[in-house]
Every structure is written in C-alpha cells, then in structure tokens.
C-alpha cells in the first residue's frame, strides 16, 4: 500500500502563493480558511536582515493528534496515510483544531462563502449580485465551484464542522497529483509514495537532509522540507573578541 508524503524544496519555492490559490479553487475553500498556508519570519536588523518563507499544509502525521482526539472518528486515517475528515460525523467540538500542533485545521463558524450569498448588486440594474452570478453559471455557492471535490468529501462543507487539507485525495484516487503540486510553477512541491524507494520523494529524502515542523513532539509528519534559498555571501571570518 502506498504511503503518501510531500517534499517541499525551499530552494525552489519562490513564495508566489500559487499553491494556496489553486488549493482554494480545487477544494472550494471558503474565505478565512486556509488549507494551504505559510509561515513567514523576518530575522535580523537592516541591512543584515533576512526573510524566511515556509509553505504549510496538513502534515498528514502518522500519529495524528487530531485523529487520536476526535470522539467520533470523523477525523481518520486512510490506508494510504492521508488524514481525512468526514463532516457527516463531525460534532464540531473543535478538539482536532485545538489539538493540532501545526495550526492547519479551521472551523466553519458560519455558512461558508458568505460573499456569494449576497443578493445586493453593486449597481442596481447595472450589475448582477454575487448570488445572481453564482446562479448564472449554474454553480453551487461560488462561481468557481469545483464539483469534483465532492467525490470524496462534501464539496462545500457546512457550518459547524472543521475542514483541512486532504492531499487532494479525490485527485490522488484518479492518479492525479494534488492540485498545489501541479500548480507550483517552480516545481518546489514533490509528491509521492514514501514506501517506494524509487519514488522521487524517497530519492530526495535520501539526497538531502530534510526537516519537519515540530518533529520533537513525535507526530511523524509526512510533509518534509529540504534545502533553503539563501543567496547571501559573506567574507570568510573567524569572528573576534
């Protein structure tokens, strides 16, 4: 059985945000919720300053605290290692979100896609309302609605339940790459079966020394980071006292 993992090459990543935008479109992610996100950090003081950018998503941990804590098994593991959520079983206790060490689970505090529910046109008689636009294209909730998401998970999750990245399990099922991987213009995301030594992810993990987020807490995340972009130069020095 495959065990899926993702390698993110920080040297290739240019921080364009294409992963996040494509993820939103693919998974009908509502505003305020981020299945694909980032951690940014600025260190030092000018002119000796540097900006760090780490793309984030669900780590699909082997020992996932969200899965262990979910009282109804709404959050569960698939055989291929993907951490999946079933909104039909979710009681909305938010314990998975509370318990996730990576801050990648979000709660639907209200009916999603509020903007597109608005029936008021910006210019009365001149433009259509957001809701009219959705109707015109025959979509559900948003004009850019992707019905394919509905193959394995509610295409639009209702209010009162959590949601998070699923490694695009509906695409993986059809032997397609997760949307964020496909959309990355810099090939910074590499996806594959970590159990297969010949897979690209296994080769990269063998070639570079990867790190994972908060490894010390023992969740065994399956999103790995390799390398780092750093064009800075410095004159050889031994420092001084």
């Amino acid at each position, binding site marked *: 059985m495959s065990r899926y993992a993702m390698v993110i090459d920080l040297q290739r990543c240019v921080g364009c945000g294409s992963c996040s935008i494509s993820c939103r479109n693919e998974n009908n992610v509502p505003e305020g919720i981020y299945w694909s996100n980032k951690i940014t950090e600025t260190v030092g003081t000018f002119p000796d300053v540097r900006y760090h950018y780490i793309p984030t998503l669900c780590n699909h941990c082997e020992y996932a605290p969200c899965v262990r804590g979910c*009282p109804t*098994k709404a959050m569960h593991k698939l055989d291929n290692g993907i951490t999946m959520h079933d909104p039909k079983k979710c009681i*909305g*206790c*938010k314990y998975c979100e*509370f*318990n996730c060490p990576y801050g*990648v689970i979000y709660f639907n505090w209200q009916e999603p896609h509020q903007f597109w529910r608005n029936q008021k046109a910006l210019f009365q008689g001149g433009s259509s309302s957001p809701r009219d636009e959705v109707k015109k294209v025959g979509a559900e909730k948003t004009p850019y609605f992707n019905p394919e998401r509905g193959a394995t998970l509610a295409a639009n999750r209702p209010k*009162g339940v959590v949601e998070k990245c699923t490694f695009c399990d509906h695409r993986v099922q059809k032997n397609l790459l997760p949307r964020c991987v496909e959309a990355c213009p810099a090939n910074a995301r590499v996806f594959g079966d970590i159990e297969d030594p010949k897979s690209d992810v296994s080769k990269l993990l063998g070639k570079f020394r990867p790190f994972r987020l908060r490894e010390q807490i023992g969740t065994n995340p399956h999103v790995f980071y390799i390398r780092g972009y750093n064009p800075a130069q410095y004159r050889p020095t031994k420092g001084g006292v």
Partner: protein
Amino acid sequence: MSAKKGLYGTWMAVLGFAVLIGLYTTYKLFADGHVLFNTNDVILWSLPLGVYIYLALASSGLTILAALPLVFGIRKYEPFAKRLVFLAIATLCGAFVSIGLELGNIFNMIYIMLSPNFSSPIWWMGAIYSVELVVLVVKFALMHKGDWHSGFSKFLATASFILALVAPLMIGSVFGITESRVTYFGPVMSIYCLLMAFMSGTALFLFYSMVVNKLTENGVPVEMYDEFALIFTYATAVVVGFTLLKFAIESATVIPEFLVYHQFEHAFGSIRGLHTEVLLGLFLPFVLLLIPSVRASAGGKIIASLLILIGTLFMHMEILLAGQSHPVGPKAEQYPEFIKYFPSIWEFLVFSFALTIMLILYTLGERYLKLTEVPE
C-alpha cells in the same frame, strides 16, 4: 406565607422568561452558527466551554460529597444525601446545556455511539458524564421511593462515586494530552480538575444550603453545616497547596512555550504578579475559612463559598484562555501575536441558559421532591 408564595411566583416567572431567552439563543445559534460567539480559529473554546467545565466539575464534586453517606456509610450526613444527588443531577444538566450549545453540530452526536473513538479523551469524558447522569437519576429515583440501602441502590451509589472520580480526570486529560499546547501538557491538569471538582462541589452545596436555609425551614440542624464548612476548608487548603505548587513549577521552567504563556496568562489582571482571581477567589476565602468565627457563621459560609464559586469559574476561564491566546503555526499570519477575548452577548446568554435550567431544577426539586428526606 403569601409573601413567600409571591416570591416563588416571581422567581418562577423570571426563570420562565430566562428559558424563553435561552430558547431564542438556541434558535439563533442553529440558524446563524457560532459566528455569534467572540471566537475565532485561535480562541476556539470560550465561555460556554468554561461554563461546561465549571458545572461538570461541580457536579462531580457534589457526587463525591454524596458518597460520604451513601458509599462510606456516614449516617449523620444522610439528611443531605438526597439533596446532594439531586444538585449533582441538576448541575450536570446545566453543564450539558452549555456544551450542547457550544458544539458546532449537535445532531451528529449520534456518532459518539455509532462510531466511538476509544483513544479520545473527549469521547471518554462525554461517555462517563452521560452514564453518570443516568446512574444518578436512577439512584435518586430509588432514594425517592425509599430504597436507600438495597444492593442495587448501593451499587449505583458506588458506581456514581467512581464515575465522579474519573470524569474530572478525563476533563483534565482533554487538555493534558494536547501536544500543540505545552502549557496544558501533563498529568497536572487531571489532578487539578479533580481537586477543583471537590472544592467547587462543596462550595456549591454549602452556598445553596445556606441560601435555602434562610428562605425555608427545612428542619436540618444548622450546626450540621459546620462540619461541611470544615470539609470545605480542607478541600480549599488542598487546592491552595496544589495551586502554589503549580505556580512554582510554571515559574521555574524555561521551556519557551511557558515563557510565552507567562506574558499572556493574566487575562483577569494581577496583583503583585499573582492572578487576581486566585487571590480573591481562592486565597481570600481560604483565609476567611481559617477564622473559626467566620467559618461558624452563616454569613461567613455564604461569602466564602460564593467567592470560591466565582473564583473557580474565573480560574477555569484563565487557564482555558491563556493556553489559546496566541496563534499556532501559520495562523500567526492571519492573527496578531496575542488575542484578547471578551464574551459576546450570545455567549453570556448560553451561560444564562445553563444556569436557568439548573436553577429551575433546583427550585422544583426543593419544592416537590423532599430533598431532606432520610431513610426510615
């Protein structure tokens, strides 16, 4: 007599009005969702959850207290046994109202039974409190029929006592096994919850009994409450000791999460570096209880127990909020480093609804269920 009747009528009218507001709150939460709360994806659990913890723990404390006559056979406490069991039931009902309105999708609760996850402390907490409620109701029904000492009745008393011991440990473990929030981590939270349960249950019983004693003539000798005041003092002493130990451990560590936590832990202010709610809601009543004349007086008992009851709620809220007030991982991109929280009107209304249900049950129980009855 007619003045008392008038007072009762007014009291029930107030509670009835509060129920209507509670039902409207329920409708609004179902219709609009939890966006009505002042919560977000950082502060996830707020006042309704704090109230649930508070009431559920107090209910466990009342059940543990009821075990003195019902399990350990201390017969002089039998006049209080029925009331203790009833208060535990009513308080737990209040807790369930609060958690029910906190959950995003209560209709899926059926999956707690259909798809149980035995590794989840939330599952265990829910299961134990549900079973405890059933056991307490059956036990109360038997006591009401006069069956106090049959084998089955004793079994139920023992079962409810064990459940009441385990349930606070499970509430503590909900926090204690949270990897993402080191400041909750460890067995300390479970022990803390158990001690808080006994203290707040005793405080609730003492406060309630003193108030009822003032309003009615229920035939229980007032001196009997002195012994409960002493038990209450011991319970408070243990919590004071444990709180000081907890402070000492937390202030000695240099684990980064604890250092961050120290910056945000005073949600309700501090006096000379010590939490306001701990000083006024725990240390002050403890000092009052140490004075024999205060402990012996009805006023002293009411003030000390009321301070503890208020302080306990604030202490639970403080712990709940301090562990959540800064965003985890990438959520720091969307939210500020520290998030302040003040409940919305809807959260206060959930609190009010939970209290109302509890108070209605207290009132009706006191009036119709002969709560000071003893076995023949």
